[in-house]
């Protein structure tokens, strides 16, 4: 039986919980290979060995997994490696001074400092680039890989309290557009956030927020259920289109 391996950051947690709940038996097809917290993805955290056709995670804070088609097959035939890494706005919105710095078109208050589009793109690039490079490296060594989006921001997150929603939404959109373009240009399938979890304003619905009162970053088991189903759908389509892989 072929498998799906889900690897990456803490956003794996929601899907694991959904699997543990047993509500959707199909999720049992997913194996988990957590690497560690997302902040490591800002660093040079992996090495590519072209000759051996593998990608090794090298950062001391992460599980030092060596990814190769052979290792992932594990006698069962890998259907898809799904990667969850910070190519979303969570960290961008949390760590940057969007209460003071805003996209130039959105400058509204005298205290706000307008940023050029190029500066914002650079901020996004420096946040996402190594994660995207990791996905590209896996793809390059012949691993069938897809990238899973993390959830959009939750509007009630305390770290957004001083930031205008339209500013956050703008950054969110720019981040996704950048990441999507990079991933799709590399011919890597993208598993988007399930539409049912997104409110009309484009944010993640509060009902899908993690049950921990202070966690405004992760989704809950209900979120994981939908995200897991999205993974299975994409995996099924990919397998149909290229069953020999």
């Amino acid at each position, binding site marked *: 039986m072929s498998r799906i391996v889900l690897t990456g950051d803490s956003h794996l947690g929601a899907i694991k919980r959904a699997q543990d709940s047993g509500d959707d038996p199909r999720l049992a097809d997913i194996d988990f290979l957590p690497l560690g917290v*997302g902040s490591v993805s800002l660093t040079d955290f992996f090495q590519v060995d072209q000759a051996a056709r593998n990608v090794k995670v090298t950062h001391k804070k992460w599980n030092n997994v060596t990814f190769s088609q052979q290792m992932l097959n594990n006698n069962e035939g890998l259907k898809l490696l799904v990667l969850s890494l910070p190519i979303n706005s969570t960290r961008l919105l949390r760590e940057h001074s969007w209460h003071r710095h805003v996209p130039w078109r959105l400058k509204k208050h005298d205290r706000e400092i307008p940023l050029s589009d190029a500066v914002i793109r650079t901020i996004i690039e420096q946040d996402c680039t190594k994660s995207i490079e990791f996905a590209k490296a896996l793809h390059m060594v012949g691993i069938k890989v897809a990238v899973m989006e993390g959830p959009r921001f939750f509007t009630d997150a305390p770290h957004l309290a001083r930031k205008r929603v339209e500013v956050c939404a703008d950054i969110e959109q720019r981040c996704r557009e950048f990441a999507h373009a990079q991933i799709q240009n590399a011919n890597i399938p993208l598993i988007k956030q399930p539409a049912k979890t997104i409110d009309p304003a484009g944010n993640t619905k509060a009902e899908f927020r993690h049950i921990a009162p202070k966690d405004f970053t992760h989704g809950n088991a209900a979120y994981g259920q939908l995200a897991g189903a999205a993974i299975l759908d994409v995996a099924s389509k990919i397998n149909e289109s290229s069953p020999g892989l």
Partner: protein
Amino acid sequence: MAQNPYQTLDPKSFWSPAVAQRNLFDIDDLWSAPFEITPKTRIATYGSCFAQHFSRALVARGYSWLNAEPAPRGLYPENAKIFNYGVFSARTGNIYTTSLFKQWTSWALGQSSPPDIAWEKSGRIYDPFRPAIEPNGFSSIDEMQASRAQAIKSFRKSIIKSDVVVFTLGLTESWWDKTTGAEFPMCPGTVVGDFDPLEHLFVNQDYDFVLQNLKEVIAMISATRAKGPSFLLTVSPVPLTATNSGDHVLVATMSSKSVLRAAAGQAARTIEAVSYFPSYEIINAPPYRATFFEPNMRSVNLNGVNHVMKTFFAGLQPQEAPLAGPPAPGLQEATTSFGEDLACEEELLSAFSGRP
């Protein structure tokens, strides 16, 4: 018989003990601050490219460099520098001449406005008054104007809030727009823009012009409050890249720097709360034997920069301990909060240990 004046002078007044008998790194007492500069003194810095070394050194030593247009938090230092954040107190780019400094001040104080000029290259828009402020220009004139408006606002804030304004005079050769009377920091057509001999005017500023503009800009800034800031003038030791004067570039460099040095010195002698700091001499004087230049004999090397700044800090009055400097740049993980890491670790631990 009365002593002549030289008999009572300090040893630093005599070449032999102060210079000839010393190793070049032991030549000291070149400058002492004529006004108080403490770690709490808010210092704004502008001028030619050499001025940026002041901001870096002040920050590194925990002094209160006034950054009125800070980079967004989290932008890596190397990227902030590419976009000219943290170079001067506002994102003005290089201000090479005293007249350009006056132009920025006039805009900041609402006495004039930037003319409606934009330069285009390969579909991107460049600010004629900050042509290198964004490495690939702007997407539109509106974006450029929004950025410049912020720089003017931040410049205003810096000159109004500062206790000391450091200005490094860089050039006498300047380029002007005939129609509007505005001065460009660079000749149109060199980096971007198109040169038009009918529209663009070359002025090699003389001593009177440099000094007059310097006096005016100091007066303008001082007039913004009851007790204006002190001014510290320096002259960039960096030679001209090129000259349009018709002279050999070496001759033009010496001529230009001599004019700037004389004007800065005259301003320091005649205007209250204005001082001159000898960075030009520290790099260029014969006893230093061009030690502080890179092989191209133009770029100042790190040793030179460090020696200039060491001289500056040595000349300050005995101080209270400097404030803590900023964290070292390049620590990428520092851009993520401890709290986020904790939340993510907790999520991984709980999800994969069977906890709810």
